[in-house]
């Protein structure tokens, strides 16, 4: 446990150090840049806003973490997010219910949308033994252009100059209290449910063991294909929920490229968190802090906000490689200690 924290903290610090080097070469003052970055996202009035920005990151991160830990290579979060968002939008355009019914209805619709999209990949695997690695990636592109078509023709807002739908009915807007958007509560709830399923439920146990050794689980009596189907549907639903959140907590309509910034970050977060559910939450929020702060950093110090994407990638690379490196380092140190014991 302590080792795990050490690897992550050291990895992140190293990444910031590398980033500072880049900034120095470019003639910026790294200390000021970093200060502005965190000042913008962590100022007292800003924290709630930053947290709501991390909602889609955490949800797609959870989707990828659960999938990877269970041995299902679901890389379709971008597509599932879009379809989920689209379905929630369509529901929001045609349903007119009081908020207490409307919001759950839209969230469920978004999850159905995501699950539908990942379900296609799961069925392809079941019938034709096609790897979800390929099919989910292909389905991303289809989802991309399908939603583009949907907001350009059937659900197009008449007077708009940019491809987007009209606003969804007010009852479907996620309530906001000052800066605090209730989508944060949905994110925390999803986190708790997923943590419980993965770490306490019978299904989660079977998923994790199958992810590590599928033959052993099969011989132990685990129904591998049923579990695979469940994992694909659940992780699709999570990514779909992220799409629903983006629409109902954000612009309240489906705008072109609405999810472009989030879904791949989910895969990155799952990798850097090593599919650990708690770490997924931590990194999801941390990346949210970075991305939110990037805007402020650009405003004040004129450092382009793209620097943050580089920083994120460097964090992933350093932490992931560091994990393996530290492991071998520790075992080697132990071996050396043993050698000394024997020789003396």
């Amino acid at each position: 446990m302590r080792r795990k924290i050490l690897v992550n903290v050291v990895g992140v610090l190293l990444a910031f150090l590398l980033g500072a080097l880049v900034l120095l070469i470019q003639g910026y003052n790294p200390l000021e840049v970093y200060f502005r970055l965190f000042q913008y996202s962590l100022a007292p009035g800003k924290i709630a806003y930053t947290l709501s920005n991390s909602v889609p990151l955490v949800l797609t991160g959870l989707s990828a973490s659960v999938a990877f830990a269970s041995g299902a290579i679901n890389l379709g979060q971008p597509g599932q997010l879009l379809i989920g968002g689209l379905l929630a939008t369509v529901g929001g355009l045609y349903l007119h219910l009081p908020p207490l019914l409307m919001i759950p209805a839209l969230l469920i619709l978004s999850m159905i949308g995501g699950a539908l999209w990942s379900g296609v990949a799961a069925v392809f695997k079941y019938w034709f033994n096609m790897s979800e690695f390929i099919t989910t990636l292909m389905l991303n592109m289809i989802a991309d252009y399908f939603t583009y078509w949907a907001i350009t023709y059937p659900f197009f807002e008449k007077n708009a100059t940019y491809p987007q739908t009209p606003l969804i009915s007010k009852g479907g807007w996620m309530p906001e209290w000052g800066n605090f958007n209730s989508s944060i509560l949905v994110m925390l709830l999803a986190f708790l449910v997923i943590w419980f399923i993965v770490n306490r439920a019978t299904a989660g146990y079977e998923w994790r063991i199958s992810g590590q050794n599928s033959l052993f689980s099969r011989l132990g009596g685990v129904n591998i294909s049923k579990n695979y189907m469940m994992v694909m549907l659940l992780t699709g639903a999570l990514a779909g929920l992220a799409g629903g959140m983006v629409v109902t907590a954000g612009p309240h309509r489906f705008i072109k490229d609405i999810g472009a910034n989030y879904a791949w970050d989910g895969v990155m977060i799952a990798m850097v968190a090593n599919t650990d559910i708690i770490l997924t939450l931590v990194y999801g929020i941390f990346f949210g802090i970075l991305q939110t702060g990037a805007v402020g950093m650009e405003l004040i110090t004129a450092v382009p906000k793209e620097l943050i994407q580089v920083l994120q990638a460097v964090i992933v690379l350093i932490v992931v490689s560091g994990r393996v490196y530290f492991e071998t380092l520790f075992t080697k140190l132990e071996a050396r200690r043993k050698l000394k014991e024997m020789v003396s």
Partner: protein
Amino acid sequence: MDDIIEMNRIVKIFPPALVALDDVSVTFRKGEIHAIVGENGAGKSTLMKILYGMQPADSGEIIYDGEKVKFSDPGEAILAGIGMVHQEIILVPQYTVWENVVLGIEPVNFLDHLDVKKARHQVKEKIEEFHFNLDPDAKVEDISVAARQKVEILKLLFRNVSILIMDEPTSVLTPQEIPQLFEELKRLRDSGDTILFISHHLEEVLELSDRITVLRKGKKVDTIQADEATKTGLAQMMVGREVIFESIRKAQQAGEVVFEICGVNYTDPNKRPRLTDINIKVRASEIVGIAGVEGNGQLELVNVIMGLIEPTSGSIIAQGEDITREPIIEKRKRVAFVSQDRANMSACIPAKITENVIMTHHRLGKRFTKWGGRVLDSKQSALFTNEVREQFDVQMTSGEAVFKSLSGGNQQKVILGRELLLEAPFILLDQPTRGLDVGSIEYVHRQIMDMRAQQRGMLLISADLEELFRLCDRLVVMHRGRVVAELVTEETNVTEVGYLMLEGASYEA
């Protein structure tokens, strides 16, 4: 005779803390066949790999021909005249014998192209020089395993290696091919080469070698002259105490049939028949052994029983019910299973010990779950892990530790605990003692006998005849996917079963 290699005080630790070699010193003389013997994990291969530059030693030195040497890779060792033939043979199957031999050091003509004539001629000369019965133009994929092994040796001789390390060379050979290999090795020795020979077959070692070094658990026991050694003496040195090669069964009446394989046939996707008309019955309190050289259908039989592959025809019947096409979880109510492949079939190595212990129980045992089976009861998992630890004498820190952290013997105890506590009336044991040390083997054998006393029926697949004779009531011999003999253990002997395993036909004394 002169000492040519001295290995002094070699220590090797595999991280984190596995001591593979503990202060081992050996000398090898010029022109001798020197056998290195020991059980699995005694450190034989590691010692030779260090000499050959495949692995660095953590401490100690090697003196070769009067000079201190340290090879950082096998290429350097070969240049210095030390070569190693591994158990698995690594050749290009599509190339001819001579092409394989010259590969990497091809003679070239003035255009810097391969000089085919010269290369082929050189290889042919070498073959004649050492009286190897090999055709230089044969393709490697067309020749026998024994001939391929010869090509490996030739490759090294062609590089002027004068010290030849052979890692269990007979393990890939048929009994008929072994004497020829031995002839060739002796001829090489007589021409002044040194041969270091890893083995755990005592008879071979006694027949072939001049001197023998015995390793036990990473330590050198002794180096002795082969003509002063005996088989029982060597066995005692290897395992550290007297070895009993006898049955430990007590008389017990077998009960009714608990498990039955009925007319099972299996043809693999390449249309090759792997199992032909297999019929085996197992009664309660009975241990039926399956004897056979590995690769004669045992793997397929296990997979059919466990439901990993579907038989082409025939059925598997447990307690009178046909379970051939039942889901695996249904089979597991009646069949416990200990696999020979711990890492892939019997355990999830990176998971916690507890998570390994509750597999299958979590579905079959009501106590392990709550909320209608949806949620695991972690208290019960911990309690059960403790039961396994106590009943099966597992050395471990906590159930929360990863399974990987256990030693091989303790891993097998955990697996046995899980499977035997399933309380299935039938247990399939596929080489349950493979890769274990002697103490653990004894432990596993005692557990198996306990299960017999508790009315369980067992099918024991083993490559080890001593184990089979020690435990089994009846023996079934498999050869090329068929049952070629069914014998009562008391009425047969090792020679007969060994003959049936190799030849398949019945034995005429």
